[in-house]
């Protein structure tokens, strides 16, 4: 039960943060990526603001064995930088630049964004399902 309450708290805070920060505004995202146009640095503040508490959290996690709910804290593997990481991130970035939406803000916009945002979300989930089918058959 505590686990679900923490998930709700984290999801709600994430959604509110995405809205307040401007990440759910595609024009703002485009403005940040538009380095050679009229660059809007807002998203750099978002990124910096988000990394700060998380950097502290990783330091706390390194000194503890278990999370509040008793589960073992993840010891994230330092995996290799491979072709999948680069190709996948390159595809993701292309889509992010075209629509000004990444997965978190796309989901956060579902309740207020309107049909264009729902279209993007459905296409995104379809892309995830296509990957699953493709990856499973390899």
């Amino acid at each position: 039960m505590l686990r679900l309450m923490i998930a709700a708290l984290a999801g709600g805070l994430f959604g509110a943060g995405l809205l307040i920060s401007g990440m759910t505004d595609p024009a703002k995202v485009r403005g940040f990526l538009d380095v050679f146009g009229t660059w809007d640095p807002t998203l750099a503040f978002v990124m910096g603001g988000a990394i700060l508490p998380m950097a502290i959290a990783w330091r706390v996690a390194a000194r503890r064995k278990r999370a509040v709910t008793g589960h073992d804290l993840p010891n994230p593997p330092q995996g290799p930088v491979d072709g999948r990481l680069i190709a996948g991130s390159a595809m993701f970035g292309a889509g992010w630049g075209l629509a000004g939406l990444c997965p978190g803000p796309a989901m956060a916009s579902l309740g207020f964004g309107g049909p264009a945002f729902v279209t993007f979300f459905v296409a995104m989930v379809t892309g995830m399902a296509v990957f699953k089918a493709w990856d499973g058959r390899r």
Partner: protein
Amino acid sequence: MESDWIAGLIGGLMIGGAAAIYLLGNARIMGASGIISGLLDVAATPAWAERAIFAAALIATPAILVRSGMGDASPAIAGTGVMILAGLLVGFGTRLGNGCTSGHGVCGISRMSRRGIVATLTYLLTGGIAVIVARMLGWS
């Protein structure tokens, strides 16, 4: 402009705070693309319920804020065809690369993960190129 930066910083601290709560509370890494694609595995496991609750709160909270006048809905910048293409790229790409802005960007960079840093530099680069290409093609 400066007020946008302050809002960005405050919103960013909230995003990072949420990721910190998820890590230290539930021992989970807060990656939006992983959580969304995990919902496709419709098996009634505790992990699925946790993702579903996270997603429900993620959708409901900003919707309530917008509806009560404490935030603004923003217009899309692309037409339907481009939205579909972009969505497919984001969906397939985040699974192939195993992460997006929250997982690689926020959770990866904050622990100086090489994969997170390389992924973030890659999607920033192709994102910048996509903005230029979209403008040249008259897509946005």
